[in-house]
């Protein structure tokens, strides 16, 4: 299991965003977005959330929600071309 804190991430939406806000933000602000279900592995972490979970991609940057019990949900962006390519292969386009 990895730790999200070890990644060089950019916060797109601050902590305390609701899960639905994160999904809507991705759908409205990214031309390319994909859907996955809870338990999808991203950056060696199992992603949680209300299915379907929207992941945005901008070039090699992946935008994804991350929930911590005390802080709520953040929307994070991490640059990783290999992981972006993997998402394109394994995620789905339809909700």
């Amino acid at each position, binding site marked *: 299991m990895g730790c999200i804190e070890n990644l060089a991430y950019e916060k797109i939406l601050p902590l305390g965003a609701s*899960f639905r806000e994160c999904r809507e933000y991705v759908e409205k602000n990214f031309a390319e977005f994909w859907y996955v*279900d809870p*338990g999808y592995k991203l950056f060696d972490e199992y992603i949680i959330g209300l299915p379907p979970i929207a992941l945005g991609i901008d070039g090699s940057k992946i935008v994804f929600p991350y929930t911590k019990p005390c802080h709520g949900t953040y929307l994070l962006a991490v640059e990783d071309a290999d992981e972006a390519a993997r998402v394109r292969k394994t995620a789905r386009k339809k909700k």
Partner: protein
Amino acid sequence: MTDHTEKPVPAIALLVLGCPEVPVQQALVLNIAHNFRKRGTAVHAAGNPAVLNLLKVSDPEKRYLPETQVLEKCIEEIVEKKRDAKLCIVFAHSDAGITYAATMRHLLPETRLVVIIFGKDPEPLAALIDFPCEKIVEKAVHNPMQLRKKINEVFGWAA
């Protein structure tokens, strides 16, 4: 009319705990663990390090909660099919708690899922739940008594 009959006893109950900032959670977790264990159900609790440390201090001999685990590890084990539960109880007093409950619903589709929604304003949170589960909703921050009563009713435990 409330059904007070004792329900069938599951082998393992998984308790998924929220952030410990609302005091009733701690008391209710230990109370629920006590009620299950005396009926022969093993209890496994998963939470963040802060909530697990609070429980460790409250239950130094692990009489109530012998098995605890960091939430991320618990989710990893469920996804990898190394952990299962016939009953999962999620404590939710924030959007994050509902997110964890939705995740458990998806990962454990056959499991009885009970979501305890509490805190200062639980009704809007309860309205976010659009997946199948049993909801126990009660405004509760410092006083656990009314919520405990509702929990006892759901599981058929005499007060």
